[in-house]
């Protein structure tokens, strides 16, 4: 067993994070599959709008509830699962609705929020909403279900750190007394309200309306008023999610491509996890160019390649030259990637795996199993 597989095997929750397109969904599924093959009851919760994972797992669709990957799907891939693999796809809107229902003091309030236009847009309009709901769902699954392992995939963000910041930003917004005071002077003032009153709440609202239009502002006011009093419940819950994420049974897996931009993000993320005492299970460098010419020997020239080519059926037209060029290019890329990754592995002390760029996309169980072997 290799590094990341081994550390992941001791966790009850694994969260895959990384910048956009690096392979979070694929790695999450591979980790889950791996444990299911060796005997665990596993759930992978993905956020893959492209729905390719559903196809890969042989499920016609994935919803906000878990479904089990059928045995025949394993058989078709030449695999046998000693355990069970379950999968689901996060439905952001549904998860919000459930959360509102849980915290609303009465049905009237719940309806008021659910009907608000701004609330309805929120899952797409409010930055970080997906990330927040991913954490929320994870908490629910971790407390209500008895999986041996839950693997959480995280949403495609340009900046991986958004994932950790999103809940706070949204809670700030929901609990923003200032906004509430600005928009609906009728409701509780408090300290912040006073400060704003000094610059004239009514004037501010009027000025803002010149930008946003009155309708948008009324929606916003109504929305925030709806959440009044529910904020504490949300905040407690978010605190509990955070506490959960710092328990040792949790492990973050940082997925990166070998590009400098993605590596920088992984390093920033690691620093952040470290600062917040959140446990890192490992690093996965994905889609790495394999080293075909290890060691310090100089790369072969066309003249070096011509004789063995001649011995095996000929060297025209200029095949030896093209082979030498292609290997040199390949190796230049491989060593640039290796240098970039060494910087990462040196500065981050965590188990790591280097997964090569496979010959084709990973879109079935067999491909996932192959990838898991490299973890």
């Amino acid at each position, binding site marked *: 067993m290799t590094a990341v597989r081994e550390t992941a095997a001791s966790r009850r929750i694994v969260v895959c994070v990384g910048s*956009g397109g690096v392979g979070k969904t694929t790695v999450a599924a591979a980790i889950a599959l791996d444990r299911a093959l060796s005997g665990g009851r596993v759930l992978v919760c993905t956020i893959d709008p492209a729905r390719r994972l559903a196809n890969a797992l042989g499920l016609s669709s994935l919803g906000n509830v878990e479904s089990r990957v059928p045995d025949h799907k394993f058989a078709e891939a030449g695999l046998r699962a000693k355990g069970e693999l379950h999968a689901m796809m996060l439905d952001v809107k549904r998860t919000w609705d459930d959360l509102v229902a849980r915290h609303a003091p009465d049905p009237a309030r719940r309806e008021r929020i659910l009907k608000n236009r701004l609330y309805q847009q929120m899952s797409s309009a409010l930055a970080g909403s997906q990330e927040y709901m991913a954490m929320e769902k994870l908490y629910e699954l971790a407390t209500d279900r008895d999986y041996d392992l839950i693997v959480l995939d995280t949403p495609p963000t340009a900046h991986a750190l958004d994932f950790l910041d999103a809940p706070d930003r949204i809670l700030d917004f929901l609990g923003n007394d200032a906004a509430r005071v600005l928009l609906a002077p009728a409701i509780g003032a408090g300290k912040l309200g006073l400060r704003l009153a000094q610059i004239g709440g009514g004037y501010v609202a009027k000025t803002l309306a010149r930008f946003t239009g009155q309708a948008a502002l009324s929606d916003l006011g109504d929305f925030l008023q709806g959440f009044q009093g529910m904020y504490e419940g949300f905040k407690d819950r978010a605190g509990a999610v955070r506490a959960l994420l710092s328990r040792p049974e949790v492990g973050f897996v940082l997925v990166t491509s070998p590009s400098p931009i993605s590596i920088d993000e992984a390093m920033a993320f690691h620093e952040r996890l470290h600062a917040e005492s959140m446990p890192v299970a490992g690093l996965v460098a994905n889609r790495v160019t394999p080293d075909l010419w290890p060691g310090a020997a100089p790369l072969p020239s066309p003249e070096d390649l011509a004789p063995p080519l001649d011995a095996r059926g000929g060297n025209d037209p200029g095949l030896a030259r093209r082979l030498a060029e292609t290997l040199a290019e390949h190796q*230049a890329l491989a060593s640039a990637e290796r240098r970039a990754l060494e910087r990462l592995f040196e500065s981050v002390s965590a188990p790591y795996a280097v997964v090569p760029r496979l010959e084709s996309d990973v879109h079935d169980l067999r491909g996932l199993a192959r990838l898991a072997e490299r973890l």
Partner: protein
Amino acid sequence: MVTGKGGVGKSTVSAALAVLAARAGKRVLVCEVNARERIAPLLGAPPAGSSVREARPGLFTLNVTPHEAMREYGIMVLKFRTIYDAVFENRLVRHFLRVIPSLAELVTLGKILFEAKSEERGRPRWDVVIVDAPATGHAVQLLRVPSALLDTVPAGPLRGDAEWMQALLLDPVRTALAIVTLPEEMPVNEAIELDAQVRNELGIPRAALFVNAMPEVRFTHEEETRLESLVGAPPPLGPAATAARLQALRAEQAQRYLARARAALDLPTTVLPLLPVAEWGAEAVERIADAIAAAPPQGAP
């Protein structure tokens, strides 16, 4: 407007188009909407920050941040800086301005389009404005703002702005949108979806498709078959054949996705080579510019 999936080469293509326009003697502004500034560094110049800077003769760059754009727009509308500062620079107000849907997009796009129509001594300030737009989803959110406002906002200053912005965006003489993609499955799928959104929802004139980082076809089919059997040979032939086989496979896949993109999108298409360089910077951008100049998208402005 240059857009496409994250990481496909939008900034590179934007910078290369700017280089070409500057080579033709035009006064060019490249606007980017990035948390981390990319364009000036790609042109070998120091970061410009959120003000217009000349990266090289005739070629200017600007990184538009919502915060600065909001400030400029606010001051323009309110006329008085002091009022703006009192209202908008208030920490609490700023905080919640950030979450009003579309406001950040509105001021960002407003700033860009304002540059596009600005004049100096009776002449347009810029011959060309190139926008290194955000990745697909965000780009659509950005470009949709004027029409969304026209649907919801009653008469007033905001509506007036939305009107001229929308007119400029939809004008085939002045505006063109280019999609950048890689010859890979996900980026091509996203390009196809994006193109449908541009046609059906945004209505912005579509001009070109750039298929970036195309591996060259280096081996014939016969050679490829032969390579299979050479992979197991002892070094140096074995490793060289392996590298060649991987290259051939990649090129073959890329050809498939290029064909798929061409079939699904009836756009003038320029294919840009995969450049094997370790340091991505000004030199690479020049080479991409040369490649565009050698085979510009037919019929595009």
